[in-house]
């Protein structure tokens, strides 16, 4: 139905003469044209189905799967759009406290956070790790940042949030989480109000760190987990600290020795 009266919603075929003298139902004379094949949703911007690269098969909760797929694509595009630079070993972490445990994962110490994977992906993703490292430490343009979330939201966890969608970080966790709880306006699309002033670089970096983390601490005792990210990490998180850092064990020191060498 290509034409729709904006007043009462009545639709008309393409070439219909009825509408030439106004809508016969409500007399309205504004019509919206939509090409064949689009439907008329009640609300604008219906969520579109995600592509083939969903992190999970789209059975079960389709809307979640779509969100996951869209977010995954977006994160992947964002990560891969960053050129391969050397990661900055001096990148700061949010809430730096200096109680550095041995092997603690710093902002960028060569540990791989892994990329969000497809369900049918295998284990070789070394180049994404570099890309992600540079995404952590490299400079992002304000435009890119607006694309993936608002800095004003990222550092402001909402204690009441149990929906897993409190701003950018919540959305990144939505790659793995976000079940239960009412949907919010940023469930479907990445929308953010650009702030008036250019955000500081450190803020951008923190924000990127937020977006790639495996475990988000909403508040002490409340956590959101990005299962795909956790699965895809090379290293093994053995302890959580409330300042948002993980104590990790690098793979070969922990895994395998006791079993394979027996």
């Amino acid at each position, binding site marked *: 139905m290509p034409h729709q009266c904006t007043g009462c919603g009545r639709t008309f075929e393409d070439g219909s003469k009825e509408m030439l003298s106004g809508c016969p139902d409500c007399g309205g004379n504004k019509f919206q044209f939509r090409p064949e094949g689009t439907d008329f949703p009640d609300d604008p911007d219906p969520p579109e189905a995600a592509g083939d690269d969903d992190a999970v098969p789209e059975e*079960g909760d389709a809307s979640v799967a779509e969100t996951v797929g869209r977010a995954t694509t977006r994160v992947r595009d964002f990560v891969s759009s960053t050129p391969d630079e050397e990661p900055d070993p001096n990148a700061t972490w949010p809430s730096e406290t200096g109680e550095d445990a041995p092997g603690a994962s710093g902002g960028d110490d060569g540990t791989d956070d892994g990329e969000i994977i497809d369900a049918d992906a295998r284990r070789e993703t070394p180049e994404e790790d570099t890309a992600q490292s540079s995404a952590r430490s490299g400079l992002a343009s304000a435009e890119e940042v607006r694309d993936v979330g608002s800095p004003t939201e990222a550092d402001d966890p909402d204690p009441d949030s149990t929906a897993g969608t409190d701003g950018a970080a919540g959305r990144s966790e939505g790659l793995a*989480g976000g079940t239960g709880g009412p949907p919010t306006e940023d469930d479907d699309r990445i929308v953010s109000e650009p702030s008036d002033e250019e955000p500081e670089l450190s803020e951008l970096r923190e924000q990127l760190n937020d977006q790639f983390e495996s475990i988000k601490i909403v508040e002490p005792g409340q956590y959101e987990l990005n299962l795909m990210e*956790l699965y895809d990490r090379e290293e093994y*998180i053995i302890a959580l600290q409330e300042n948002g850092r993980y104590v990790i064990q690098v793979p070969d020191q922990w895994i*395998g020795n006791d079993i394979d060498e027996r």
Partner: protein
Amino acid sequence: MGLLTDLKSSISRATSSLFAGSEPKRIGIYGPPNAGKTTLANRIARDWTGDAVGPESHVPHETRRARRKENVEIKRNGKSVTIDVVDTPGVTTKVDYKEFLEHDIEKDDAVRRSREATEGVAEAMHWLREDVDGVIYVLDAAEDPFTQVNTMLIGIIESQDLPVLIFANKIDLDEASVQRISNAFPQHETVPLSALEGDNMDEVYDKIAEYFG
């Protein structure tokens, strides 16, 4: 079974040339919180070794660290299958200490449990990647199986080519529906059981021997 599994076990066989037989397969018991994973692990361990794996509880996230019971020898039809049973913390995308408050646990303790449970999920996901040769995926048959966590985990397990059995647990409950679970994951075999009551355990052991032997 999957090619990968065969490869893995042939590698581990090569590294353990001292042993005549093959290494026991490590079977991870995965699933959402409160599906009955520890109850199942304990039943398997008690039935075949006399020991338990860990404390069972109705409080979610009672199991906050993966526990392993090694060399569980299951005898079926004149053959014997030896596995290592790995009981894992329930996998979820959210852990909230407030859940524990409902179970008369003080706030400080609840926060600590919550943190441990989160670490436990991270550990379980890591083991899934590195350290299991097969998976028993336990679901509460009285609950809706169509959750994101289940879909995602089953997807990951499939991507690893790991042999997997779906266990529809708690069939002793009135509202249990095994059919709902087999509909949710038609590509895998669903085995009904009650780990608590010990219902249908013969079939459970037959399937374990068939899939992981």
